[in-house]
């Protein structure tokens, strides 16, 4: 059994509060090979902007996921919270 390294990241995503925007983010995250460890979503009803914070882990570079989430039409921006980056070992 080979140990593989899962890097853990915290993403902060700003999105227009549109239909299924959360589903789109979840679908892309899963498809691109990231596990979701936790998430929180809130909407500012004043400007209809949703802020989603999401903890993910993967062997893959986070830039892969950031670029793909950024391509979603309703996304305004994605930031990686570097202060939250961690690494954990997983036995494959």
């Amino acid at each position: 059994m080979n140990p593989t390294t899962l890097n853990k990241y915290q993403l902060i995503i700003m999105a227009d509060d549109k239909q299924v925007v959360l589903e789109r983010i979840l679908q892309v995250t899963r498809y691109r090979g990231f596990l979701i460890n936790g998430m929180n979503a809130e909407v500012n009803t004043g400007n209809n902007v949703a802020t989603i914070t999401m903890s993910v882990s993967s062997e893959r570079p986070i830039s892969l996921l950031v670029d793909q989430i950024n391509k979603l039409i309703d996304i305004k921006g994605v930031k990686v919270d570097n202060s939250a980056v961690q690494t954990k070992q997983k036995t494959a």
Partner: protein
Amino acid sequence: MNDSKPLTGGGLLFEVLQQHGVEHVFGYPGGAIMPIYDALYDSDVQHFLCRHEQGAAFSAVGYARAAGKVGVCLATSGPGATNLITGLADALADSIPVVAITGQVPTSAMGSDAFQEIDIFGLSLACTKHSFQVTDINELEKVLHQAFEIALEGRHGPVLVDIPKDVQLAEVTQRLEKLSHLKNKVQLPLADITKATDLLTHAKQPILYVGGGVGMANAIDEVRSFAEKTGMPSVSTLKGLGAINPDNENYLGMLGMHGTKAANIAVQDCDLLVVVGARFDDRVTGKLDEFAPNAKVIHFDIDTAEINKRRSADAPILGDLKGNLPLLTMPLNIDEWQDRIQKMKQESSWRYDHPGENIYAPAVLNEISQLMPKNSCVTTDVGQHQMWAAQHMDFDDPSNFLTSGGMGTMGFGLPAAIGAQISRPHDTVITVSGDGSIMMNIQELATMKRYNIPVKIVLIDNAKLGMVRQWQDLFFNGRLSETDLSDNPDFITLASAFDIKAKSISKKSEVTDAINEMLDHDGSYLLRVKIDAAENVWPLVPPNTANDKMMESV
């Protein structure tokens, strides 16, 4: 606002389609889309009734690819909508601008497992660039404009708009809004032209690697000018075929799994890859870690997510290829490399002197390529015939070779050819298919008959699922599992049932006359070309193998 008369949602749909220049749509009616079909009755938009929604989706794809416009398809809810999905996935994989309109059960019934209800909005997430569900008639006009804009913005792709029946029936006044433009969400960094220029001027063995993005960026002239002025040897992906003039002396043809030996060896030996509108697809790279191992990379792309996705770029250049590529177009001193390329090209040129009397499919396709009128459009299905067409036919524009690249969808060729022929009624349209693929959307022969669409069908018939059979022979110890199709229908009788003139040939001596008869025929035609079932596509780079370790025979 203006004083337009109220329209139904269905009527508004066709008004907006016409605002976007849509003249033709492909579809199939059903219960939840009846108000839209009722509005169609009064519309100037011409509808082509396909015989399966998948056929409608592929016709829209073929139409879009052949004409450089947005393709539009319509389907009802439930099974009608799910039948579109393969076509939408195909359009997503190959970045084709398509707008799909689906009917949905009334909003009051949504979520109740109503008759012919499926969550197509949810299903669309993985197979479209974007999707909408319109539950408020006042949103419909804006959403339809957005759908067209998204389909064509940046990297093209399919957009689905799901419209419940009550929204189709609701009355609304068209606002005739100005088309709003999407915000340029991704701020592209300034292209590192200085770094790229430095790489280019120091390269001794550069290769230009051309993909499907060139045609979609309308940058064929710029890429050809780059290839000519730099003298850089070039290779093409399956979707890039036609972007480089096939007569360019430094052009080596397709690279990758079934690429030419010269193209693959040259890429493996190069010290600089200039990548234009391509994405290092696995069928191109073979074993990724060993692809062009000594090359630096300059990567031009419109899609930020393709940069560094599978291969790091030393100089990424994001944005419009048409504007960016001329910045690097300069003469290079690479005479020694060009001489090597010429030698490689001569040593690996195709041969058509196949022994025996049986028909050699590559020779037939090469001869069709030479005899077909200029600006003919060829579509293919997927399998051996597809790779032989890519290898042995020449195209002078990517819009003249339509093939399912990313998704590799059998059943693509015939409906795509129908769409292509409708978009380009004065050009010859030929679909090259196989006896496995053609049966995937054979019902579209009825669409050809209904509208007298003069598509020429070249059916390469080995009574096998040839490519799978080839892999079973090569990589699965010859265990031929479920690839025999010797019980296929009689294709000549089948064609005649749809009033399509047909002919079957099985000997080399029959080929030239048969091709000429097909091309001269004023109407649809099916030419069945019987070939030896044991023929393989060569060269072949085995899976997870470096491209210079290709097999050239068994």
